[in-house]
């Protein structure tokens, strides 16, 4: 992608509240807390 000539550089430190973090989903279902009935 051609963005043209570089003009300037800025440093941006994003504040935590403006940078939402991704929702991490568990890789597998949580184990049931209920005792197993046999």
């Amino acid at each position, binding site marked *: *992608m*051609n*963005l*043209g*000539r*570089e*003009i*300037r*550089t*800025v*440093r*941006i*430190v*994003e*504040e935590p509240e*403006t*940078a*939402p*973090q*991704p*929702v991490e989903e568990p890789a597998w279902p949580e184990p049931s807390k209920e005792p197993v009935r046999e």
Partner: protein
Amino acid sequence: MQLDSGVWGTVFPELRAVSGPAETRPVVGFRVSRIHFIGARRSLALTGIGPRTYFWEPGRNVATCSGPIGAFGKPPHEAPAAGCGCGLYACHDIAELHLAWMVQGARYIAKMQWDSRFSTPYDQFVLTGVAGSGTVRIHQRGWRAQFARIVAFSDEIPERASIGFFGRAKAGGHRVVSEPTVQALVEKYRVPVVPLTELPNVLRSAGDFVQGTS
């Protein structure tokens, strides 16, 4: 090695900008993402248009340079570097997307269309609003950032009058992203999918557009 910006700033202008106080509002811009459905589970993935690109993940994405690998397998430098093409890209304006992607995008898509193993229906592209932070190199038509995250998508592709990259998109808000794809985008990225006219306003809530580059 730390260079004194007062001494070297005339040679490397970026030293002066980076050495100043950091801003807190990210810069925002537009890009066109390519949609992939990968594997038997048809998992959604987004990349750029070119052959050397990133897979964009939900939340913060981190740029790395894919240039020649340095010692111990490390990237040659931190991205985005001066004089390199690395970084996470976006354009300042929707209209500039056409110009910025005209060469690379058209060539790449033409190649893909000739390759019968891949089909390129219009559903495979989505207009994406992103916010960049960290070290951000501002160019005439867009920026390259160290970090970037997806803020929103548009379910419409901007009109292009002549035949070209977006040549088949119709005028008047022609909807080019199917409802199943919209649902997959929302489910994975947890950001809104809005009409084209609303996308700039959504981006303004997340950051600032770069001004004064033309």
